[in-house]
């Protein structure tokens, strides 16, 4: 794991770094510490990062801009901030976790678990941030019909038949999406509210028919879970 810590108070940055190392141990490939947001966005552009621990003051307008900018990039984000009242907003924008200061070792452990897919996902996600030219735009997730893996990134297909590209991995996305979204295939996550019916096509092959007429494949080992969900 390549980790970036963004924290403007050096003693706290030290603390986070020490805790992270002791909690993740061998898993840590590198930890970078930067003190300002400008440095952070430079570092994110110049080298690949898996997880960003970000201290963000979300009370100003710039705070949201920076949050959007970071979230549009491939890495996952955990916010470590004293502005606990902004946690819900952060979740709506798609962060994995929000740790309120002053934090404990246990709380940090929980956040890493969530990142590693061991903990429950958050159900607060409302928007996904994507890049369009130099601009970071928000997409409401309710309008997304399904996601499709497209090499390292993900394509989201919308109700109005548009398609947007998200710089995320499908596995990462699965961790932050709320309950109505189900992984039906190695390359597909679908919004259950848009599912019409599914068909058995023989030789243990299944196909999912969406309300708008799109047909998606269902992987064999994911079928039982999906069958159970749709029956409910």
């Amino acid at each position, binding site marked *: 794991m390549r980790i970036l810590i963004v924290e403007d*108070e050096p*003693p706290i940055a030290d603390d986070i770094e020490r805790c992270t190392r002791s909690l993740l141990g061998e898993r840590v490939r590198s930890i970078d510490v930067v*003190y300002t947001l400008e440095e952070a966005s430079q570092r994110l552009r110049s080298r690949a990062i898996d997880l960003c621990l970000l201290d963000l003051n979300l009370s100003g307008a710039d705070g949201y801009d920076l949050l959007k900018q970071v979230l549009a990039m491939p890495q996952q984000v955990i916010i470590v901030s004293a502005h*606990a009242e902004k946690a819900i907003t952060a979740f709506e924008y798609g962060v994995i976790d929000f740790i309120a200061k002053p934090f404990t070792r246990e709380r940090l452990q929980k956040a890493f678990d969530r990142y590693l897919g061991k903990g429950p996902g958050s159900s607060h996600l409302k928007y996904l941030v994507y890049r369009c030219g130099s601009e970071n735009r928000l997409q409401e997730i309710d309008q997304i019909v399904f996601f499709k893996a497209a090499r390292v990134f993900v394509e989201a297909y919308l109700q109005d038949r548009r398609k947007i590209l998200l710089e995320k991995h499908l596995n990462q996305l699965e961790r932050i999406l709320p309950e109505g979204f189900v992984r039906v295939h190695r390359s597909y996550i679908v919004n259950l509210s848009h599912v019409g019916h599914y068909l058995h096509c023989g030789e243990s092959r299944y196909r999912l028919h969406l309300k708008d007429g799109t047909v998606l494949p269902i992987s064999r080992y994911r079928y039982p879970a999906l069958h159970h969900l749709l029956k409910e």
Partner: protein
Amino acid sequence: MMKFLILILSALPLLGSTPDYTTGKILNMSGKKILLMDQWQIRMGDQWEWAVNPGKDSSWKPVIFRQPPPDGDQTSAQGNFWLQTTITLQGKKDETYPLMLFFIELPSAFEIFWDGIPFARNGRVGKDRRGETPGKIRGFLLLPIHKTTSGAHRLSIRVSNFHIHKTNHEFEILCGYSSVLNDLTGQRKEENLLYMGLFLTAALFSLFLFLGGWRYFPALFFSVFTFFLFFNYFWFYLLRSNSLKVPLFYWLNPVFTSAGTISFLFCNVFLLWHLEIPRRKFILWILCISSSLRLISQFLFQWEFWHLDLFIALVMLGLIFQQFRKKKTGSATALLGYSFFLFDWLVDLLVPLLPVLAFLDAPFISLLAYSIFLVGLMGSVTLKMREQFRTLDSLRFRSQRLEAELLKKYIQPHFIMNTLQSIKSFLARDSAKAEKLIEALAGEFRLINRISGEIVIPLEEELHLCRFHLELMGYRRNARYQLSTEGDCSKFSIPPMVLHTLIENGLTHAFKPAENGIFRFHCARHEQRIVYRLENDGSNLAEMLKGSSEQIEEGMGMKYVRARLAEAYRESWRLHYGVDRGNWFVQIEIEEG
């Protein structure tokens, strides 16, 4: 409102009972009319026999009431003269009431004859000033009951005038039944009392408003305006009490009619300032000149220059209308009031246009117009007052809100949580530092708690607070911050947390974490001006400025600083900031006075 309307409507027939006038030389005794005797003959000199035997008609010159005579107004000349006219009584006489004459402003003394027989006098007619005793300015004269029979009668008046110099007053003599004449004058007196009450109430109310703490100068002008108007009507009241002696009247009349001019001047001055009419100082000059002209003409020539006032009133109406179009507070009600003021003035001209006015009684129209005029202006003042109170309220609210906002900034998570996190991270490694951090935090809190409610605090106390904050932030950001001062800080004061907020802003924007920094504070007095200047040598901000435009969006901190300065020094302060020789500076200048 409804009650008011009902009251006015029920008063309508009461006010409408003014008797009818006729002019000419014939009075019908069976009716209730008043004869306005407007056709007279005059003869200069003084001969007793003129009462019985007036002599040839050609030696008498005609004088017609309210028409300027071709060769000067001889009724206001000094010396002795006689007036005569005939009056024809017709119809059946009402035996209940006697017939009476009512005279107005016939200086200075006279004796009056009915068919050559003297029946009344006013003062004592004399051959010179010493021999003359002036009479009253107005009064009733009872006609001899048994001689007022049907037919033509001759009325002669022997006049002497040595007490009054040039006057421009036309005399008036009315004839009618005593009941009707008494009613007429009595009613006028009641109207006068009503006006006096109206104006005095308005004057005192606005004066008390002003004295009671609402330092709104136009309210004072309004008070002066209505007070002079009261004074003016008080004079009419005195006149109508029929007890003023001729010389006193001529002494006091210009004084009291000047009250009318002065009240008009103050009415306009009030409106100029109240509605913030542009170029009001210039207009004030014109108003003063015109009022002086009026006053001088009144005192010196007894000449009323009212056309000038009418012109000014029309101009003022135009100016008020202009403000009304700009939607100035209170301009609508002021426009309404002023229009009615002019309406009352011009009502005689408007009758042909609005025939309905002829059905309404003139005094009633006047009263209504004056009431609307006053109510309009007072309403306008009230609206202004409401606006001012609202502004004051919002200012007070804003200041309170900022204070609350500021306290929240320190007591709320953000600041304290971050500090606690720092303390936590120090505890494991460097407990001595953690202890110092706790002490600095406690020190800062204690001071903030004590000073944040004040409007200004000693500068040294503020600097003390800044040092606590710098120490605390130094630990948190792993840097050393210093605050150096220049000048004698013990002599100055400053609103609380102003420097503290500026330093906090500086720490957030100007310095990178772990970068040491120096703040320099400089205070000095240049005559009436106090200058505070805070600089820092942070590396970040100068760079930021180079890249972006000169404009920096002001955050909550700067707004707080401005609000605090405005609260303490109203408008006599200035704040500017920028980059000077690579250093960021904020400068506050305060005008003392």
